């Protein structure tokens, strides 16, 4: 996975409305990227549900969280709406996994590793974490540790 201290790579993800999300969208804000394997899978469901509970505290620290997977935007939107979470979803569907590869989190099975990255407003990667396996759910406390608590 990309290391802390590196400049964020160039990439393009798709927002739910079809517009692009690129490295330029890191400018001026602290960004938390949550790479997850599959929409509607059990651990990913638990992960987004849990992280949703602390969004206000993340915002209070000036951080914006995004979910990233290789699912199509329509699938991500259905997933988000079914859960009732507001974490914006970014799709790495086509070319499949290209952004995940750029961050070094593309699993050979064809999906993102379960991983987290915090990127600063200067596009510098501040912190990264890859779960020991895609089935392990990282506690959200790790993100707050990395944000400087």
């Amino acid at each position, binding site marked *: 996975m990309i290391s802390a201290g590196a400049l964020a790579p160039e990439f393009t993800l798709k927002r739910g409305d079809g517009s692009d999300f690129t490295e330029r969208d890191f400018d001026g804000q602290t960004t938390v990227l949550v790479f997850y394997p599959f929409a509607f899978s059990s651990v990913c*469901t*638990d*992960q*987004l*549900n*849990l992280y*949703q*509970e*602390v969004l206000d*505290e993340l915002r*209070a*620290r000036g951080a914006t969280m995004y979910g990233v997977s290789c699912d199509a935007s329509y699938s991500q939107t259905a997933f988000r709406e079914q*859960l*009732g*979470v507001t974490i914006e979803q970014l799709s790495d569907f086509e070319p499949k996994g290209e952004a995940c590869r750029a961050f070094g989190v593309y699993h050979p099975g064809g999906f993102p590793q379960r991983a987290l990255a915090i990127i600063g407003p200067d596009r510098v990667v501040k912190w990264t974490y890859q779960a020991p396996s895609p089935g392990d*759910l*990282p*506690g*959200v*406390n*790790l993100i*707050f*540790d990395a*944000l400087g*608590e």
Partner: protein
Amino acid sequence: MHRLGSAPVPEPWSDDHLRGALGAPVVVQYADFECPFCAALHERLSGRRVQVLYRHFPVRSSHPRAWAAACASEAAASQGRFWEMHDLLYADQARLEDPHLWRRAQDLGLDLERFDHERRSDEVRARVRRDFESGVRAGVVTTPTLFALNRGEAQRVDTKTLDGLVP
């Protein structure tokens, strides 16, 4: 701003909910009242020689009724009936809407007006949130999550290995 970075499981607070035989092992349980695995654990621990310290960990998008149920249990606690409400909530997880909560409060002989006021109060919300945040800081990600408490040290206990601790 509340701190949510890593921290050990807090030692028991004065207003924590703890029951069980004195001297028995203490298990801190992060749980919610809509979680079926928590209900199964409740059954499993019933009658065992253990002290259960119950902390709320409701995740609203997972279990939409868990937060209200947690607040109801705290409103019952302020009238001295936490564990009775706890048991009634786990006894029937299919009925956790407001009328069902009122019915349980009525069955327990609670002051209904006070119960309804307190379960919606900022104080009760803060109490539930305090438990939740302590779990987040301890790395809790799902329910139920258990910790064995021994001389102030909390050690995570897998439900599969629980029998070794609580025969």
